[in-house]
């Protein structure tokens, strides 16, 4: 018995006591686990199912042939994966290059219309994605950016900038300005003080914003579809095509690939992001 323990009575005679509370607790935990892991288990099953159709509860044949097909040199999964990673990486670099100075200015300077500026970064999200990206695609087509990696990166940056700037602003706001002044007062120039004091202290928050932007870019579909396809194919597009074509195995394998960075993100956030940074997001 999991909860059976031996306790000593005042008389000194050991009594076997059984705590029955573990039953409802176990049931609730089991239910939660099922809600979370059930769909995941289904996903994993699909990736190794060779044949699986109604009314069978489990696949009829198991095998890795679809993995082989996805990762085959002829298959476009590797291209999509490479494209997705390159675009996500570049998006992070561009978004942070903009968000670090912007976040620092918004956190430290007494800017007029500070709230309005913060809200402005939300505007790309405020309208239906389709409307925005159809117009972006038309514009980019004229500029020759359609179907190019820089075009897709630009779209992802506008999309991810709201997270990058807001989180960077929060990260810099959480650092007492006196810490930087202390460095200035004993001889550090403005840039030196920023690099030695403020940036290392803001690093966990900036890392979180980088990961957030990376994941957003990896997941982004609408913009990638209108601006990228068919020349620049990304993982979500592959997932969509496979899913729409009824090829659940390929869709599941793609989905599993997309899941890995998300889990990594959760671990990093849990490890590094302090609550005092999170509490300043959007302020």
């Amino acid at each position: 018995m999991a909860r059976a323990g031996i306790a000593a009575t005042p008389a000194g005679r050991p009594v076997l006591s059984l705590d029955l509370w573990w039953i409802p607790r176990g049931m609730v935990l089991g239910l939660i686990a099922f809600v979370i892991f059930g769909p995941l288990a289904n996903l994993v099953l699909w990736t190794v199912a060779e044949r699986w159709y109604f009314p069978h509860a489990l696949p009829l044949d198991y095998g890795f042939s679809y993995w082989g097909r996805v990762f085959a040199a002829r298959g476009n999964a590797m291209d999509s994966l490479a494209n997705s990673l390159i675009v996500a990486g570049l998006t992070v670099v561009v978004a942070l290059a903009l968000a670090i100075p912007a976040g620092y200015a918004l956190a430290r300077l007494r800017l007029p219309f500070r709230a309005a500026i913060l809200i402005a970064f939300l505007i790309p999200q405020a309208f239906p994605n389709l409307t925005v990206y159809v117009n972006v695609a038309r514009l980019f087509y004229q500029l020759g950016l359609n179907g190019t990696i820089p075009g897709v990166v630009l779209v992802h940056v506008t999309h991810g900038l709201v997270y990058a700037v807001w989180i960077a602003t929060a990260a810099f706001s959480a650092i007492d300005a006196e810490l930087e002044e202390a460095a200035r007062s004993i001889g550090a120039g403005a840039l030196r003080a920023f690099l030695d004091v403020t940036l290392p202290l803001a690093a966990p928050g900036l890392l979180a914003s980088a990961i957030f932007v990376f994941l957003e870019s990896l997941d982004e579909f609408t913009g990638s579809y209108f601006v990228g396809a068919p020349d620049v194919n990304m993982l979500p597009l592959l997932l969509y095509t496979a899913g729409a074509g009824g090829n659940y195995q390929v869709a599941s394998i793609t989905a599993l690939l997309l899941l890995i960075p998300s889990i990594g993100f959760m671990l990093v956030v849990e490890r590094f992001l302090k609550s005092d940074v999170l509490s300043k997001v959007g302020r």
Partner: protein
Amino acid sequence: MNDDAFLEVSNLSVGYGATRVLDGLELTIRKGEFVALLGASGCGKTTLLRSIAGFVAPSEGMVAVAGRDVTRLPADRRGMALVFQSYALWPHMSVAKNIGYGLKLKRLSRAVIDRRVAEIEALLGLEGLGARKPAALSGGQRQRVALGRALAIDPQILLLDEPLSNLDARIRLKVRHEIGALQKRLGITAIIVTHDREEAMAMADRVVIMDAGRIAQQGTPEEVYNRPASAFVAAFMGAENALTLYGRIAGGTLWITAGPHDAGAALPLGGRKLQSGPMEARFRAEAAELVAIDAPAPVAGELEFSGHIETASYLGGAWRHSVRVGDESLFADAARSFEVGAPVRLRIPGDKLFLFNLPAPERGLPLPPHVAHEPTERLLQAT
């Protein structure tokens, strides 16, 4: 201008928006001098320190160090070091890194930095703590690391912004003597901002009392304590008891007009610059003497009020009484305690009484009640 002025602040004005925090302030400090900027919160003392340090841009005026105008120089090029009230230690650096940071900026070699950091640690009693992070230190240790970080670069001027306000009362007494002794030993020019007059007097050679963005008075601790130049300074230096009296000057003697609770007095003028008219009188609780109502008449040059005891509390060394005199409550110390409600006489020696002219009452503004009636002067004993 003063030849031995090391730090010179002239006509300094600082304003945030429409409000003026500093207003045409003048201050000169000699090399090696320890100056305390003393004042209530909001008087501009921290703003003055921060404009000297280079963190507040003045709207007018000049800050000069050793004859060189530094008003437009950024904080890092003024050769000063500021110790912050919050200590502002860098949490991601060890104690040794914090102290050595300023030396690293000077591109000194590792060996030189290590030696200097060890010196500073020994000087401030921080031996063995070099590898710790600030979070693992006590308040007193953090304060010393902050001081050490500032001293390590051998600043021309050391600026201290309420460095003791975050310490426990007991440690504070110890640290203020340590800082005072250290400043004397190193011969460093230092400015401290504080709102604690004892702290200012214990550490500084010169106390600068500030009020509403201006200097109310400056001088040695003894001068500002015993010869306050205004009612504000007197109150700030502990003369909390305030009365309105009416006085007349005649031939080196100040005749205090008798009121409903006092018989008036003739006090030697003693160098006071006063004019006949209404005056604000201020004195410290410990300067007053409490005697029983049937005590013999006071000696010459003492002002005496009659009243009754409201409260009595023991402060250690003396009993402090709140004495009701007419509408006023005055504090006075006595070696023994008087019963609550007991009628007493409160005597203040003339030389312990700080007197300041009040602006002449305007038309329509009544005189204080006890001088409104026919003034009757009574000479107790001519001097």
